[in-house]
């Protein structure tokens, strides 16, 4: 439909956690906005992927939710990182770095893997 890439489920959770770590408590719309901005508008986040992902993280105890009031006086649900979520983020970030580093080696022009 668009030239923008959809996010894959697993990485979306990581992005949400990272966003919450950087930004502090944030509502769903804010998270979506932030992810789009950070990705340089390459990624598009819609309800159908975001809210199930938030629910999943909440069920796993990585984030907690609480109703609050937004900047423009609108009632919104704010998500924040729990200690468990912080740990999870650290783990996932490491794993991610390892994976990307590994993959990256395969694409190095002068690979010395032989």
């Amino acid at each position, binding site marked *: 439909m668009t030239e923008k890439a959809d996010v894959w489920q697993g990485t979306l959770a990581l992005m949400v956690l990272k966003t919450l770590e950087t930004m502090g408590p944030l*509502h*769903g*719309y804010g998270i*979506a*906005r932030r992810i789009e901005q950070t990705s340089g508008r390459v990624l*598009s986040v*819609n*309800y*159908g*992927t975001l*809210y*199930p992902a938030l*629910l*999943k993280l*909440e*069920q*796993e*105890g990585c984030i907690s939710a609480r109703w609050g009031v*937004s900047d*423009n006086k*609108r*009632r*919104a*649900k704010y998500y924040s990182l729990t200690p468990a979520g912080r740990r999870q983020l650290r783990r996932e970030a490491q794993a991610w770095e390892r994976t990307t580093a590994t993959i990256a080696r395969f694409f190095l022009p002068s690979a010395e893997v032989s």
Partner: protein
Amino acid sequence: MRAVRVFLSRLRGLAGKARKDRELAEELASHLQMQIEDNLRRGMTPEQARREALLKSGGLEWAKEECRDRRGLPLLETVLRDLRHAARILRRSPAFTAVAVLLLALGIGANTAIFTLLDQVMLRVLPVKNPQQLVMIWTTGPHLGGNQGSRASSYPMYQDFQQRAQAFSYVFCRYYTALSISLGNESERVTGELVSGNYFQALGVGPAVGRVFWPEEDDRVYKGHPAVVLSHQYWVSRFGADPGVVGRKIFVNSHPMVIVGVSAAGFSGLDPARSPQVRVPIQMKPLMTPGSDQLGNRRNQWIQIFARLRPGYTMGPAQASLQPLLSEILRAEVEESSVRYVPKPMRDRFLARKVRMEPAANGYSDLRQSYSTPLAVLMAMVGLVLLIACFNVASLLIARAAARQKEVAVRLAMGASRGQLVRQLLVESTVVAVAGGAMGLLLSVVMIRGLLGFLPTKGMLLTLRAEPDWRILAFNLALAFLTALLFGLAPAWQTTRVDLWSTLKDAAGAVAGNRSSVRMRKSLVTAQVAFSFLLLAGAGLFVKTLANLKQTNRGFRDIHNLITFQVDPARNGYSLERLKAFYQQVQEKIRSLPGVTSAGYAWIPVLSGREADWDVVVEGRLFKDGENRQAFVNSLSPGYWQTMGLALLDGRDFDGRDEGSRYRVAIVNRAFAERFFPDQSPIGRHIGFDLGPGALPDIEVVGIVENSLNEGPREGVRRQVFLPFGQSNFPYATSFYVRTAGGSGAMHSALRKKVQELDPAMPVYEMKTLEKQLDETLGTERLTATLSAAFGTLATLLAAVGLYGVMALVVVRRTREIGLRMALGARQGAVLWMVMKEALGLLGAGLALGIPCAYWLSRYVSSQLFGVTPTDVPTAVTASVILAAVAAVAGLLPARRASTIDPMQALRHE
């Protein structure tokens, strides 16, 4: 861990569903609103801003649905919804539901009942430490001596194994015997188990209170361990679970002994079906079985040997490692003076005896030996009954499917998938089956109570129970689910295979169902008839077997007027002389009772399965080596033959002259006389018993008596020698026989009173008529015959219902055709025959299937039959005739309805 948290949170998600939905809607709405506001800020028109926002955010409903699925447990919710729906549908047709549940309750209940017995007698593992390491050890081949019970060994043989076998961490032994226990003035007869000192240690069973036996403390001194361990059950029932019994003095067979402890709860011994009340160290044997020691005797086999395999050993190597040890023992035994005289062929066979070993994880039970085949046969039969009931329910479901085609077509048209509908229908079937299973479970408890009545108690506590435990519950539930699949799957498939277009437009057809559903029901009925034939034919064979056994000429007259009871004075401390006098006094006292015509007593109770047999020597007769010279013996009082109603053919009965301490006279039966004295009268001739070297024929035959049964009808007439009890030198327990003029009800207590006038502490046991005794001995056969007859009848009725249902359906479907035929002049009789022909066709197909199956299966029951061959033609004919009659009735009702169809109405029939 995380999965658990998610699951719990999802489980919580099931509650407060509406509120969560509202919150989600609000959250999504606020998201949308923020997006719109952002868009407005970027200078879009309100309308544009909204459209962009909606486009960007994706499907609102889809997101909600996605969240909802994630929040709760979707599968569980679907199942709950299906269950609610099923309950609603089933409530709407209470008649169908009731019939289906009832049919399944009967089927599943009967299966659960038989399985409960099968499980407890055959499958259950003993509640002991590492039961899979337990084995039972025995030997085969000639033993050159006495033997008691199955798989018995001599005590010295046990000691050799225990001390020298390498493959086992423990070798232990046991022996059952009746004991007389006295506390204060009361004495009661219980079953005791004499056990080696390491018995409890080997099994890994500890005490509930006090202590159990230990090899160091309880297996050292001959006759020196007056200690008793109570079974937990006996402790609770007899002593009210009083922990103070430990250290208490009791008298066992009039010997002072001390209760040292109670064995752990739940442990009943090595026999899963029966449990002894007390256990006593085996070194006490001479005192526990008065007059019989046997501890040091290698020529008498009486104990059963068990062992625990050393870790790392398996059956095969363990058995192989024991064989050289056995051969060594036998080579030493054969040099003993008592057997040195045996001729070489016998000696060679003796030396070639083999060790046998069998896993004993579920113990050893005589009951299992005699009931395993009958129970397996009954389990198969009752499985067939359930299958027939399933087919009936399936047939009902197919009939309903026809009526529900409209509903199904509408739901398919509305977009339900076929899978969803099949699932929904299967949930309905499962609800019916589980309801039937639950009701069946209740029924099974009642049925098992009835079944237990068939099992012989032999004076021991039966440990079988009717109350279901988790194994039975699991079996019952699994069976319910299996039946649900069995009767639900095909109809569900059938129901959902509708031609949408024609079903929705066609109003009729719905009632009668389509061709394929009729075909399906017809094949179900054919199978039902076939199964019913199997069950009826089987029942016929078993009923005939029982009848043959009961009608076998017993020799004894009017056994319903013959009361028997047993007393065992030796276990109350009586000496041989006092015991003989006591028996005579009891006999005299009983004879004086009004209503008693005669009384006598015998050592071995007749028709009870018990026997004693010895080899005989006969005056002037040389036996060839290996020639059968076995005779079954018994010791009798004067007046015994008169009481049993048997005629002396020649000579005299025993009388007051026949006293002493060794046998000098004998009465033989006709079979004995014909075999060993074929050409002359045995009266005045001499016989003897080959109990050791230099056996002489020094017993004079003084009488010949007519043949009679000994152990029971299956064993038939034996060659028998009867000896006067007055000349016996062993303090045997005896069975009294009392011939009464009429009813025996009040007589029982009168007899008991007479015995207790002589000795109030003397337990009187096993009091019943000889007829009842025969019934108990034929317990297996009665169980099989009664149950198989019940199953056969039930199956036939179920098949009849199935046949009736199908024929009724056929008539409805052919109403128009029949009306047309009648309008064209077909006679009523012709219509009747037309329908009947179809019913009989189904019967014929069923029989054509059932008869070969029965022929093939008959081999598996042949060992259970008596006086009838497994392929007995009259039985098969009778079964066919019964089925034909039932089928005729089931077919006639719809046929009559067909023949009375009014052609005018029928032609208008849609």
